[in-house]
């Protein structure tokens, strides 16, 4: 793999607070997912990579060049910030066009590129509306439009799916995949594992400013599967269901939830557990209303991984 983004012992402190600690990474073409709970250091990492922050220690390079105050490099980077902040006096079209002019494009070329980017994110019909009238999903797509409008080689997307409804999420996931297929290097952050899984198989897990694990999705899943998982089942008769599953070696623990009709199982072998549960349901032994996994919460996964 040819590294497009390379960090070596990268660390960042905010006064006495550690933002990022000794991160060494090489990121090549395609999509790399940066996964971690809130406060893990994802945004700090992205701000260091985009030159908004200066490393306290270590190096960050893009295309073998240091990033901090290297404005020439910024022409090749597109950054989608996490914050929902815009120049609300502008229309969507003006916003993308004016930012393109800051990239050095003439007015005519900027307008042409803005139109293309807005069509790509399906906002062309809304280009003359003031930004304060845009929905959250439209604003998120507009941020993607300003990220890609100058045709950068490297895209840094900080929580691009945050706060979106499922339909908007699907649209943006499709957009990001299209950009990957066009040969871009994309670094995308999220605190939601399924979101990252929908985008890429290459994941970096960050926690408390450090790399906790790095690899493809099966490897990360394997790491996670070494630890017990919780499965909450809501049904008419949770005690009978618990009795039917308690004899299984895959079940480590059973707890009756605070809500009536809910039982929480702890298992090390999700496949075996769900196999048995499915059989019980199919046999009509139980009328199950809902199955949820509290462990889908990334913080719980991280708690397992760091042993807390």
């Amino acid at each position: 793999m040819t590294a497009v983004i390379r960090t070596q012992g990268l660390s960042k402190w905010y006064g006495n607070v550690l933002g990022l600690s000794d991160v060494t990474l090489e990121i090549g073409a395609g999509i790399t997912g940066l996964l971690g709970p809130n406060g893990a250091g994802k945004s700090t990492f992205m701000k260091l990579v985009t030159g908004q922050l200066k490393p306290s220690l270590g190096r960050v390079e893009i295309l073998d060049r240091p990033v901090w105050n290297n404005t020439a490099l910024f022409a090749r980077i597109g950054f989608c910030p996490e914050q929902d902040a815009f120049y609300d006096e502008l229309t969507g079209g003006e916003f993308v066009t004016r930012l393109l002019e800051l990239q050095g494009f003439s007015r005519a070329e900027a307008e042409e590129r803005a139109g293309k980017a807005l069509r790509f994110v399906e906002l062309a019909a809304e280009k003359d509306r003031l930004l304060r009238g845009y929905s959250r999903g439209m604003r998120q797509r507009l941020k993607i439009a300003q990220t890609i409008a100058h045709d950068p080689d490297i895209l840094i997307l900080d929580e691009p799916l945050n706060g979106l409804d499922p339909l908007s999420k699907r649209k943006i996931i499709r957009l990001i995949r299209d950009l990957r297929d066009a040969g871009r290097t994309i670094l995308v952050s999220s605190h939601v594992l399924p979101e990252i899984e929908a985008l890429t198989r290459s994941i970096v897990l960050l926690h408390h400013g450090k790399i906790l694990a790095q690899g493809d999705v099966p490897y990360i899943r394997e790491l996670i599967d070494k630890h017990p998982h919780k499965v909450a089942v809501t049904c008419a008769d949770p005690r009978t269901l618990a009795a039917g599953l308690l004899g299984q070696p895959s079940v480590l623990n059973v707890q009756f939830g605070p809500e009536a009709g809910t039982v929480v199982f702890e298992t090390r072998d999700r496949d075996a557990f769900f196999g048995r549960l499915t059989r019980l349901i199919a046999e009509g032994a139980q009328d199950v209303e809902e199955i949820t996994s509290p462990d889908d919460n990334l913080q719980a996964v991280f708690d397992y991984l760091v042993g807390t």
Partner: protein
Amino acid sequence: MSGLARPVRSIFSFYLFLVRRARRTKAFALVALLPAVTALVIRINAWLTPGASVDGPAVFANMVLTFNLQFLILVLALFYGTSISAEEIEGRTLTYLTTRPVPKAAIILGKYGAYGVFLGGMVIVGVAAAFAILEADRLADAAEWLVLLRSVAVLALGLATYLAFFTLAGVLLRKSILFGLMFCFGWENIVPYFPGATQRLTLMHYLKSLLPPVATGGEGRFAFLMFKLEPSAPAAAVITLAAVTAAALGLACWAFARKEYSFEE
């Protein structure tokens, strides 16, 4: 420096466009037109009152001194100068600028230029309108036009200097507005009345030194405000103000380029 020209132009054009749309601009534009409105009221009152006359040059000179110089340009420079960096940070839009191939110094210089041109235009329109109303019967007199030109030049120089000064304050200080208010209405509006060399420590001293003689010569109702002015030579005043402007802008660019800004939801 030539590498800065294009990005400064881009930022200048962007913010000249944005500042026209900003809500606060409408409020400040109304304030800037107050001298014209006041002049109109004075004129109408003179027309409606038998035997009353208006000393146009004296009223105009006092208006320029007490409203435009000692209030309006200070307030405009304070609110727009400090906002050059602060509005991007508070609005969390700075990211859109600092991740572009635009040196950080260009952000300061471009915004400074855009705000300076726009505010200068606003002030000049108000002053020129007040002049035309108050001196309607002397418009053929070239000497009056020179007074207007000199007044406009002093106001433009004052706006440029204070805008640069407050740009620097906005970059360096968290509570720059509070500092600015104390500076404007404490230091700058009181110390110039101190006799001796102390008044030379204010920017206002150098601006007043440049005002047309009609405003500093002891005429008009508010002439008492000037009685202790010990003016500097015009060339020295211009050089001092230009040096302060250049130094403040240079420092603001230097400090802004070295600062890091982080936004969290």
